[in-house]
C-alpha cells in the first residue's frame, strides 16, 4: 500500500500567475506555478515537552519519521489530511501554528492501534493522538470534541458507581451534544428491537435505566479516583503553563 503522504505545501501557499516575467523572460504557461516562500519565526520550543507531559504522549521523542503510522492508519485511508506522522513532525519541530490548522480532525483517531502495532520505535502514536487532542482542548484551540464529551460522560458514571448503564450514557451524550434522540436510523433500530425482544428482557432493560447498576462498597474507590483525577488535571495544566485554577 502506498503511503498517502501529504507534502508540506498547502494549497494556499501555491501561487499561480497568469502572466509572469522573470529577469525579462516570459515564463507564463508551465512555469507559472510557484510555492510562495515563507519564513517561520514563531516556534513553540516547548511543544514536544507539552505533548509528552500529557498521558499517551510520553514517547513522542522516539519518532524517526518513517511514516509507518500514517501508512497503517484507518482514518488516513478515509481522509488523507488525517496524518499522524506529519503531526508528530510538527510537534517535534515546534510548529504550533501549523499543527493548529488541523485542529478539527485530530480528535477523529479511532484508537484501532494499527499505528502502534506498525511503529518500529514504540512511539505509541495512538496515545500521541489522544495527548494532542487533549492539548488542543486545554490550550483553548478547540471546544471539547464530541468524543471527549462521550469519554467524560462514560467515565464519570464509572467513577461514581463502578459500572455504566448504556442507555444513560447515550441519553446524556445526545443531550450534551445537542442532538435529537429521534433520528431516522435510531427510530428504525428501536422499532426493530421492540418487535423482536422478549418482554422480560425489555422490562429488565427498563429497570436498569431506573435502578442503575452499581458496584457495592464503591464509595472509597470513587473518592480515591476523584482525588487522583483532580491531581492529574492540575498536573496537566501546570505542564502546559496554564493556570491550575481552570481545572474542572
Amino acid at each position, binding site marked *: 500500500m502506498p503511503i498517502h503522504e501529504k507534502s508540506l505545501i498547502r494549497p494556499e501557499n501555491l501561487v499561480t500567475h497568469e502572466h509572469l516575467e522573470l529577469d525579462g523572460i516570459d515564463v507564463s504557461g508551465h512555469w507559472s506555478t510557484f510555492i510562495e516562500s515563507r519564513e517561520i519565526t514563531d516556534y513553540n520550543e516547548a511543544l514536544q515537552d507539552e505533548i509528552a507531559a500529557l*498521558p499517551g504522549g510520553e514517547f513522542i521523542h522516539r519518532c524517526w519519521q518513517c511514516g509507518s503510522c500514517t501508512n497503517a492508519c484507518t482514518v488516513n485511508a478515509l481522509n488523507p489530511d488525517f496524518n499522524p506522522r506529519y503531526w508528530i513532525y510538527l510537534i517535534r519541530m515546534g510548529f504550533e501554528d501549523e499543527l493548529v490548522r488541523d485542529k478539527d480532525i485530530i480528535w477523529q483517531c*479511532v484508537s*484501532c492501534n494499527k499505528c502502534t*502495532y506498525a511503529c518500529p520505535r514504540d512511539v505509541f502514536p495512538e496515545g500521541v493522538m489522544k495527548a494532542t487532542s487533549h492539548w488542543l482542548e486545554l490550550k483553548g484551540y478547540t471546544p471539547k*470534541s464530541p468524543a471527549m464529551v462521550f469519554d467524560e460522560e462514560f*467515565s464519570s458514571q464509572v467513577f461514581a458507581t463502578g459500572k455504566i448503564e448504556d442507555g444513560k450514557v447515550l441519553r446524556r451524550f445526545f443531550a450534551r451534544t445537542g442532538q435529537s434522540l429521534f433520528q431516522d436510523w435510531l427510530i428504525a433500530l428501536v422499532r426493530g428491537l421492540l418487535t423482536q425482544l422478549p418482554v422480560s*428482557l425489555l422490562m429488565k432493560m427498563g429497570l436498569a435505566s431506573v435502578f442503575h447498576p452499581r458496584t457495592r462498597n464503591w464509595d472509597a474507590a470513587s473518592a480515591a479516583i476523584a482525588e487522583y483525577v483532580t491531581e492529574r488535571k492540575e498536573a496537566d495544566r501546570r505542564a502546559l503553563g496554564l493556570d491550575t485554577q481552570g481545572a474542572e
Partner: protein
Amino acid sequence: MTGKHKKVAYYPGCALEGTGHAYNRSTKAVGKALDLDLVELKNWNCCGAMEVKNIDPKLQTYLSARNLTIAEDMGFDTVMAPCNGCYHNLKKAEYDLANDEGSREVTERLSSKAGHKTYEAGKVETIHALDWIKDSIGEEGIKARVKNSLKGLKVANYYGCMYTRPRHIFPEKDKGPGSESTLQPHFMDDILAAAGAENVDYPLKTACCGGAHTLSDSDTSTKLVLNLLTTAEACGADVIATECPTCHTGLEMHQVRAEKVLGRKTSVKILYFTQLLGIALGLSQRQVGVQENFSDATDLLHEKGLV
C-alpha cells in the same frame, strides 16, 4: 492442549449486561452445553472500556486490576472475558503492572485507599472466550458434540482491533503452531469450522469498525462498517461472526444507519460466534438469544435448515 480452563472466573463486563446481552446469554449457554464452569466475579466493576483510558490510562489500569484482584481472592488464576474491550484492558493491566512503575504506583495508591489489596502481576491470567473454548474443548471436542452442523453456512469471521492490537500486551500470541496469530487470527475460524461452517476468506478480520466513535463521529463509523459489510458480501458470506459487543452493536447500528443515511442496503447478518456455536451444539434460537440482535437472522437460519 485441551482440558485447560474447564473452570474459570467469568468477567462479563458492562456491555454484556447491556447492549451485548445476547453475547452473555449465548456464552453462558455454550458453557453449559460444553460442561464448562463459569463462576462470575463477585462485585466486579467496569474495566474502563476505551473511554477511561482517554481520561487517564493509569486509571483504566487500576479499574481492570481491581477485577483481577477479585479473581485472585476467589481462588482463580484465570479470568475469562468474552468482550474484546474487557479482554484487552485486563491484559493491558497485567502488562502495565509488570512493566510500568508509574502504573504500579497509581494502582497501589488507589487500591489501598479503596480498601483492597493490589493485584500482583502474574497472579491471574486473562483469556478470551475463544481461548477458553479452544483450550478446554478443542476442535475435535467440538466436532464430537455437534448436533446441528452449520454446513452450508458461509461465515466471515471478524475479530476487530482489540483482540490483537497492540501486540505487546498479548505475549501468548504468535508463538508458533497452535497459538493465536496477531496478523492472521484463526481461533474463531477453527471453532466455527469444527462446528461445520464454511468460512470465507475475509481480508478485513482485524479491520476497525470505528467503535471508538460510534456516536461521536457516526459518519466515519458508518463508512468503516459499510466497508466491512460490503466486503463480507463480496466474499460470499451469509453472516459475519463477531466476538466483541462493541463491534457487534456497531455493525448492527451502522448497517441500519448506512441504509437510512447513505441509502446503502446490505443483507449480510451479524451473529456472535457463541450464537452460531450454540446452534451447532443443538441449542435453540431462544437459548442463544438470536431474537435479541438488531440484525434479524431468523430467516437465514430457517433457510439453512438450522432452526
